[in-house]
C-alpha cells in the first residue's frame, strides 16, 4: 500500500515538475479502487506496476510515467478524471478500466482526443462492433466470450437443462445472452438478481426445485463470494455442476476458500496455466505482493507488455498516431495467456478454457485449466466493425 502511495506521489510530482517530457511515455491508468469491487482494480494496478518495474521503469524503451486514478465506479466521475489525464497530464495512453459502464463513459472523450485506450478488463460489445475505434485495443477479452465458453462447454458436456442466474444489469444480460449463443439445450429458468445482492437463499431454493443438470452464473466480486458460500452450504456443491464466469477467481477465492473447490469458470487464463511466461509471471507477482494473481492481474500485465511491444514497434514515436495504430495491430509479444493475436476490431483472438478452483500444495487457493473450449476464438461483433 505504501509502495502505491509513493508511486502516486512520485507521479504527481512528475506531472507538476516536468513540462519537457519528450523521452517519456505517459500512461494514465484508470481502475476502480473504491467500494466493494476495489479488489479488481487493485489486481490490475499491481500487475501493471509489476510489469513496469520488471522492465526497469521503461515501456518500449521510453521511461514510463504511470498516473493511477480511481474512477470510483461512477461514470461521470470517470469522464472528469479521464479529461484530467488527457489534458492536464497529457497522457499518450489510457489503460485499465475495470467496468463496462465506465468504459462506455470514457470512450468518447478518449477517442476524440486521439489518445489510445488499452483495456485491461472491460470489453463492451459496442466497442467491438459498431462503435469500434482505431484508438481502442484490448488485452483482455470481449465481454461475451467467457460466457460463450461456458455455454459451449455445457453444450459439449451434453447438459440438457440449465438454470442461468445473473445480476440484473447490462453485463448480466450480456452474460446470459453470451451463454445461450452456443448452448442449445433447455434454459429451465433465467433468474435475474439485484446488483449487489448478498443473500441468495431464495434463488438457491428455486434452483433446487428446477432440478437442472447444471447452473450457469456470473456474479463478480462480493456477490460471487456469497453465492459460492451459500451454494456450498446448501449442500449443492458436487450435486449440481456450477459453471461461472468472473465468479470463481483469485479475487474471490481468498474469501470463499474451500467452498469454491471443484466449481468451474470460463477464462482465457488461470494461474495454473502451463506455459513458461505464465509461470514466471505468477511467481514474480506472488513474490512482490504476497497474493495469487487473478485474470484481472494477468490482463493488466499483458496490457503493459502490449504497450511495450507497440511502442517499440513504432520506434518510440508515440505522437505518431498512425504508426502507433499499425504497431498495436501487428505488435507481437509473449502473452502470459499463450496465444494472442489482434483482431480487426482491436480485440484479441485467443483460446478459452474451462478452469477449476483448487487448493495448491502451498495451501493457497487458485484456478487451473481443465480443458480448452475454444481455439483462436474471436468475438462475434468484429464483423460489424468498419475499421479495416
Amino acid at each position, binding site marked *: 500500500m505504501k509502495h502505491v502511495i509513493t508511486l502516486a506521489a512520485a507521479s504527481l510530482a512528475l506531472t507538476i515538475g516536468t513540462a519537457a517530457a519528450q523521452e517519456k511515455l505517459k500512461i494514465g491508468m484508470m481502475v476502480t*479502487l473504491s467500494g466493494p469491487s476495489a479488489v479488481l482494480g487493485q489486481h490490475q494496478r499491481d500487475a501493471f506496476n509489476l510489469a513496469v518495474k520488471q522492465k526497469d521503469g521503461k515501456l518500449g524503451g521510453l521511461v514510463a510515467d504511470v498516473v493511477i486514478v480511481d474512477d470510483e465506479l461512477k461514470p461521470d466521475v470517470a469522464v472528469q478524471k479521464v479529461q484530467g489525464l488527457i*489534458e*492536464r497530464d497529457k497522457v499518450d495512453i489510457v489503460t485499465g478500466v475495470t467496468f463496462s459502464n465506465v468504459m462506455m463513459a470514457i470512450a*468518447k472523450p478518449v477517442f476524440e482526443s486521439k489518445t489510445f485506450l488499452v483495456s485491461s478488463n472491460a470489453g463492451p460489445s459496442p466497442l467491438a462492433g459498431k462503435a469500434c475505434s482505431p484508438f481502442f485495443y484490448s488485452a483482455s477479452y470481449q465481454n461475451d466470450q467467457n460466457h460463450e465458453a461456458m455455454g459451449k462447454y455445457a453444450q459439449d458436456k451434453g447438459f440438457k437443462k440449465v438454470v442461468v442466474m445473473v445480476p440484473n444489469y447490462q453485463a448480466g444480460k450480456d452474460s446470459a445472452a453470451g451463454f445461450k449463443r452456443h448452448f442449445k439445450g433447455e434454459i429451465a429458468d433465467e433468474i435475474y438478481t439485484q446488483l449487489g445482492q448478498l443473500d441468495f437463499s431464495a434463488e438457491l431454493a428455486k434452483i433446487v426445485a428446477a432440478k437442472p443438470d447444471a447452473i450457469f452464473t456470473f456474479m463478480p466480486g462480493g456477490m460471487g463470494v456469497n453465492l459460492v458460500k451459500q451454494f456450498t452450504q446448501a449442500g449443492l456443491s458436487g450435486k449440481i455442476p456450477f459453471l461461472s464466469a468472473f465468479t470463481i477467481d483469485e479475487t474471490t477465492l481468498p474469501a470463499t476458500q474451500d467452498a469454491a473447490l471443484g466449481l468451474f469458470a470460463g477464462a482465457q487464463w488461470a494461474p495454473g496455466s502451463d506455459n513458461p511466461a505464465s509461470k514466471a509471471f505468477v511467481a514474480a507477482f506472488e513474490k512482490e505482493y504476497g497474493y495469487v494473481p487473478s485474470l484481472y492481474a494477468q490482463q493488466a500485465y499483458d496490457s503493459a507488455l502490449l504497450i511495450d511491444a507497440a511502442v517499440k514497434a513504432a520506434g518510440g514515436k508515440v505522437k505518431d498516431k498512425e504508426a502507433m495504430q499499425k504497431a498495436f495491430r501487428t505488435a507481437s509479444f509473449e502473452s502470459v495467456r499463450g496465444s494472442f493475436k489482434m483482431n480487426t476490431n482491436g480485440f484479441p483472438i485467443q483460446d478459452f478454457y474451462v478452469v477449476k478452483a483448487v487448493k495448491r500444495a502451498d495451501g493457497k487457493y487458485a484456478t487451473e485449466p481443465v480443458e480448452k473450449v475454444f481455439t483462436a476464438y474471436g468475438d462475434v461483433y468484429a464483423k460489424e466493425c468498419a475499421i479495416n
Partner: protein
Amino acid sequence: MSKTRRDFLVLGLMLAILAVLPLVGLPGWVITYTARIMAFAICAVALDLVLGYGGMVSLGHAAFLGIGSYAAGILIAEGIEDFFIGLAAGAAAAGLYALATGAIAVRTKGVAFIMITLAFGQMAFFVANALSEYGGSDGLTLWSRATLNGTRALKSDTTLYFVILAALVASLGVVRLVTASPFGAVLRAARNNPERVTALGYDVERVRLWAYVLSAVLCGVAGVLIANLTSFVSPALMAWQRSGEFIVMVILGGAGTVWGALAGAFVVLALEEGLSLATQHWKIAFGALLVAVVLFTRGGIAGLFDRSAR
C-alpha cells in the same frame, strides 16, 4: 454593511469569478471540471429551496437529475438533437415525476419524508437500470452533443460552460424570487410552524408540493446539462448516494442561505478531486472534515463566514 447586502456581494463575487474563469487561459480540464461543478450546484441550489427554506429533506433529488439527463440523452439517441427541446423535455419529465410522487410525499414530514423521497428515487433508479434499449446499467453514450439553433456550438466546452453558468444564474435568480415572494414566506413559515400556517388559511401541502416540483424542474435542467457535458447518461447518476451528496453539499455550505448551497457544491466536489489526487484514502480526511464542520461550526460554511465577519 447589512448581512443581506454582504451576502449578495459574496454571491456576486463568486459568479463574477466564474464568469471570467474561461477567459484567463486556464487549461481545458479546469473549465470542464468547473462546468460540471456548476451543473451539480444548480441541483444543490434547487434542493436548498425545499431543504433549507421548506424544511423538507429530500433523499431523492438525484432521480430528478437522472430523469433530466435521460430525457436529453434519449432524445439525442433518437435523433432529436435540438438543445432547447432537450431542455424542455428534461425539465418537464423531472417536474411531472415530482408532481406525481410529491403529491404523496408532501403529506409526510421529518424522517418519513426523507424515506419516501428515497423510495421514489430508488424506483426511478431501477427503471433506468431496466432500460436495455438505452444501455441499461452500462449507460448510454451520446456520440454527439445537442445542437444550438441547428449549429454545433455546444461542441465547444467553453460555450457549454457559459450555457451552464447562465442556467446557474437563472436558477439562483428563480430560487431568490420564489423565497422573497409571498409564496416563499408561506413556505418558510410552514417549515417552522405548519399548524399556524394552516390555521391562517393556507394549504401547506400545496405550497410544499409546488416548491418540490420547481426544485425538481431545476434539477432536471441540471441533468440535461450534465448529459451534454459528459456525453453520457447512466443510472449511476441517480443512485441514492448521489442524493445524499446533494444533502451534504447544502448542509455543509449552509442550508437556507444566499450562497451556501453554491459554496457547498464547490467545496465538496473540489475537495473530492483535490484530496483524491493527494491520497487514495482521501475519504478519511473528507469524513473528518464533515465531522469537524458540524462539531465546531453552526450553519455550515456560510454560518462560519457570518461569525468571523461579525
